[in-house]
């Protein structure tokens, strides 16, 4: 039942990815959050590369390269630029209750492992368990989106969600068809640009990037 060392390495990277998502969940400072996001992209690119190498699938090399360029270099750079331009480098999020959030995160991990257990049984060798980890990352990123109250951090959470999905696609199914991956990457890029436009619009209107200002639309007083 022992699997090759190189695939054990993918498992290790998967666990690191989970660890990083937890780190992001607990991170209060915006800049550190963006850096963690870049690390996440790096691990993603590396694991994609390893899967590409071990299964000899050439299109995965492209998607590893794409990940590297887009998620390690371009998006973090864009986010850093935005944060600098919006002058929110040192902002911290004070509202999150870290221990509770963490416990919720652990509950999500258990939930997704349970959910993925029947699937893990179906998969051979490499993919065993990876779907569970990917699903856990997805759900924790969702949790991060829920707990955040700043526009920028919500967006980072969104991108982390995207990364987790990408990880699911590359390691659990050995890569979606290339055209789909390009489409997804394009969507993510455009989404980030639109988010950027939004930041400026929101700040212009509300003088702050706090989502708390944006909870006026209710059914009763609208």
């Amino acid at each position: 039942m022992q699997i090759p060392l190189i695939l054990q390495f993918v498992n290790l990277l998967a666990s690191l990815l989970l660890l990083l998502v937890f780190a992001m969940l607990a991170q209060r400072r915006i800049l550190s959050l963006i850096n963690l996001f870049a690390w996440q992209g790096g691990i993603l690119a590396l694991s994609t590369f390893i899967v590409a190498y071990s299964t000899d699938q050439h299109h995965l090399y492209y998607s590893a390269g794409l990940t590297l360029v887009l998620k390690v270099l371009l998006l973090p750079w864009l986010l850093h630029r935005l944060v600098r331009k919006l002058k929110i480098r040192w902002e911290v999020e004070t509202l999150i209750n870290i221990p509770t959030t963490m416990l919720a995160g652990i509950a999500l991990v258990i939930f997704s492992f349970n959910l993925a257990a029947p699937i893990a049984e179906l998969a051979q060798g490499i993919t065993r368990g990876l779907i569970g980890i990917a699903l856990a990352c997805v759900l924790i990123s969702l949790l991060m989106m829920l707990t955040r109250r700043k526009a920028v951090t919500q967006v980072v959470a969104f991108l982390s969600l995207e990364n987790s999905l990408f990880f699911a696609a590359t390691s659990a199914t050995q890569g979606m068809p290339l055209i789909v991956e390009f489409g997804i990457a394009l969507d993510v890029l455009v989404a980030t640009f639109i988010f950027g436009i939004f930041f400026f619009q929101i700040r212009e209107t509300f003088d702050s990037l706090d989502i708390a200002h944006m909870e006026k639309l209710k059914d009763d007083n609208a």
Partner: protein
Amino acid sequence: MRNPDQILAIVFQLTQLLLVVLAAPMLTGWVNLCQAWLQNRTGAGVMQPYRALNKLFHKDAVIADNASWLFRITPYIVFGCMWLAAAIIPIIAVDLPFSRAADVIALVGVFALARMFIALAAMDIGTSFGSMGARREMLVSFLAEPALLMVLFTASLISQSTQLTHIVETFAHHEFVLYPSLAFASVAFVMVLLAENARIPVDNPSTHLELTMIHEAMILEYSARHLALIEWAASLKLFAYISIGIALFLPHGIVGVGNWSGLPLAVGLLLAKMMLAGAGLAVLEAMMAKMRIFRAPEFLGTAFLLAVLGLLIHFLLGA
């Protein structure tokens, strides 16, 4: 029934017993030296703790009037517990007579016993610092202990045994396997180690700042030989923790059953690992700042989380 191997084993066990108690202060000295270097100071050398102990043993002990027998007996109990713990952890060979007793849960119990006594003794004299330190110590250990147990369980689940000898046997002498769960467990373990041994960022062993100290606040009333024993016990505790860390995460080189020829290499490797661990600890401490005491639960909560994640990952990936 007594074959030469067993006699040899007993001899080695006694050697380890002595070696550990004698070498433990040197580890503390080494960590302090590394720290001095990192702070651009000339350190006092690795022998400094021995000089300090020697000095303390030659002083007259002063004991508060209202101190009970508990206060007097605690240093010996603490020292004994730590010595026992450090002596039974397999650090050079698994096939030693005492190593059979090195069950991880028992080890945690031994640490807990020492902690209970030291906390009781701190409250015994009734100074405000003593009670404050004891309270903080209990808070920290209350959070650190589950994390430590989770780390140990992860390793136990992989090796199917809570015996440290078994764990070492599985990791060191079988086919090399990458265990992602152990990666998590090791990070968690380092965090617990920092907290339990009163290191930065949870505590700072080198200050007596009243707002922040934990361990030092508890032993404030001790002097002379009592203090010496407690300091020595602290060194032994650090030694024991690093030994557990080595046994769990870096057991390569510890000789297996019936393989005495590897012993010199094992001792050499142990020395190298200890030096590395001590230097690593110094670097880690240099990089971090002391946290407010209120942040300690968060820190240890993270350690617990990591340990639990390791456990979960073990269940999911089977590795």
